[in-house]
């Protein structure tokens, strides 16, 4: 975090208190920044879409250091913004502290589902279901019978991604070999494309010909090396198919933009506290299909995945979440 950034943050915070507007919604980004090509940027896109469609405005603020979390959230509430959307599970404690102090303000938090606050909507994503679908695609596209998974920092959320992926792959081919690696155990693991690239090469030498990256900035290195070495890769969170046209099999979509859009669109009147799960049935997660990967996904593959999707929505196929008992039935990490 640079001085410049801190300074800008401070200026933004001062600006907030000065221009108090009535019932404008606000959005608070997590560390990682607004333009991270992934999680935060997806939220920004959702807010932008809402602003363009309604012609109304919203306030946004970017957290650049840990101590700012509570301070910024308090300032937003103090200035009368409503509803306030806060991003990221790392802000759970922030909301826990701020939301009860402003019972008339509606808060929403993304990637959290375990709090109990009356004026809070919690939105969580069924990442395992989306990963299940891309796992099926990976298994169908693989010719070697070995596929790879590169995670970022070794946290339960990332194992959750990997576990769904493995279950999907095994559903297509029970004998498939899944090579799973985590980049590291510290936050640097989110931004180490060099290590991501080396992990990809290591997985290729173990026979992998499709690699799924759930690793933030490290994933950029995974997708790059996969493209260089002539194997397929799978992107995550946002649609990353365009990064290497024809060489990215698909992307696991997590529609943070939709979640933010929905909260903004509902406004104060339509606000619903409680837990909202964004899964396959409400298009909260899914796989990306566009002109960049159209040639890679055959009609049979699409048919199989869509059938599985319908079956999951109907409750006939159960994808086990890693969180259920903190272990994965088909993959060891």
């Amino acid at each position: 975090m640079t001085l410049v950034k801190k300074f800008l943050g401070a200026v933004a915070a001062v600006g907030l208190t000065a221009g108090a507007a009535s019932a404008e919604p606000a959005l608070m980004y997590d560390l990682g920044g607004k333009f991270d090509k992934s999680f935060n940027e997806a939220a920004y896109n959702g807010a932008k879409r809402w602003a363009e469609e309604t012609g109304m405005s919203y306030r946004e603020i970017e957290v650049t250091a840990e101590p700012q979390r509570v301070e910024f959230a308090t300032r937003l509430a103090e200035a009368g913004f409503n509803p306030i959307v806060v991003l990221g599970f790392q802000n759970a404690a922030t909301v826990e502290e701020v939301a009860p102090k402003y019972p008339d303000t509606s808060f929403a938090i993304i990637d959290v589902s375990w709090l109990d606050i009356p004026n809070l909507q919690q939105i969580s994503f069924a990442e395992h279901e989306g990963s299940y679908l891309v796992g099926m695609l990976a298994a169908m596209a693989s010719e070697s019978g070995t596929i790879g998974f590169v995670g970022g920092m070794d946290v339960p959320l990332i194992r959750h991604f990997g576990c769904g992926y493995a279950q999907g792959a095994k559903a297509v081919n029970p004998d498939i070999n899944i090579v799973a690696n985590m980049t590291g155990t510290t936050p640097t693991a989110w931004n180490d494309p060099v290590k991501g690239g080396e992990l990809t090469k290591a997985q290729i030498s173990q026979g992998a010909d499709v690699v799924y990256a759930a690793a933030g900035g490290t994933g950029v290195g995974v997708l790059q090396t996969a493209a260089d070495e002539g194997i397929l890769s799978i992107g995550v969170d946002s649609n990353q198919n365009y990064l290497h046209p024809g060489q990215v099999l698909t992307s696991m979509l997590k529609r943070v933009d939709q979640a933010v859009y929905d909260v903004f669109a509902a406004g104060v009147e339509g606000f619903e506290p409680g837990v909202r799960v964004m899964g396959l049935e409400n298009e909260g997660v899914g796989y990306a299909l566009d002109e960049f990967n159209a040639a890679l996904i055959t009609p049979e593959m699409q048919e199989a995945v869509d059938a599985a999707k319908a079956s999951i929505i109907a409750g006939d196929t159960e994808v086990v979440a890693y969180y259920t008992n903190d272990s994965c039935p088909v993959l060891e990490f």
Partner: protein
Amino acid sequence: MDFLTLIQILDSSVRLAIPLLFACLAGLFSERAGIFDIGLEGKMLMAAFFSAAVAALTGNVWIGCLAGIGSAVSLSAIHGIASITFRGNQLISGVAINFLAAGLTVLVAEAWFSQGGRTPSLSGFGENARFNGITLPFAEQAAEGGMLGQVYSELISGHSILVYVGFLTVPLTWYLLFRTRFGLRLRAVGENPAAVDTAGVSVVTLRFAAVGICGVLCGLAGAYLSTGLQAGFVKDMSSGRGFIALAALIFAKWRPWYALAACLLFGFLQALSLRPDAVERITQMDVPGQLLDALPYILTVVILAGFVGKAIPPRAGGEPYVKER
């Protein structure tokens, strides 16, 4: 473990060792001249960004590499002015450089490319926008020729030019430091600057020269990260390699050949942690990758604790030189 797996792991070791080696030798020059430099990380990061950014803008990786070196040298100059000219605290200046680089790279990247503090992938800017692997002569025929052939074709051939430059830098450093007058003076300035001053040689000039060489080598390390190993810059992509290089420098006791060995060892440990399957097959037990990642630091602590010989830093290291009146 079969032979080919071993070669692949060694191949990966070399790729992971080269950025460490450049940074380690950079630190060697600086610290041998009495200037501690914990800003290796920041210089590397700055160079990684400017090499990738300029390579993307010009489509020529060589110009990018020069820009990377230039940016690292200018950070070196800041370090030099702060700690040599103004006799500031060298550690503080180094920390400041790390912070400056971490912020400035993202800021400039966002202003130039608007991709969230990244550069676009260099693979979209033509063949010359990044360092490609060089296939040495006869590598393809050698691949058929048994083990030795495989070593040649897989391990020795196929790296980008900076890898070969990196290996050449080691004997060059050794020669420069231990066989030339410049090297003798540079080492002397790190041990006893007063003596060098008495002999009529400028301490300030020598130290600036050392810090400058340090910048050039950090520049090469950064350029290798973003244009050799990867094809573009991602924020904070140096991921602590500058600090591992510092550990390697202590491990090598400030000597160039030992630095090569230390960096190769640390690279090998990193490469091993990428292949838990192979490690498990050899050791017959589940060795956690985190242990392998931590080993460089553990080894350095062991060395520092004096179990394996003594690591004695240059005597005048960390102290600004004040001419006696």
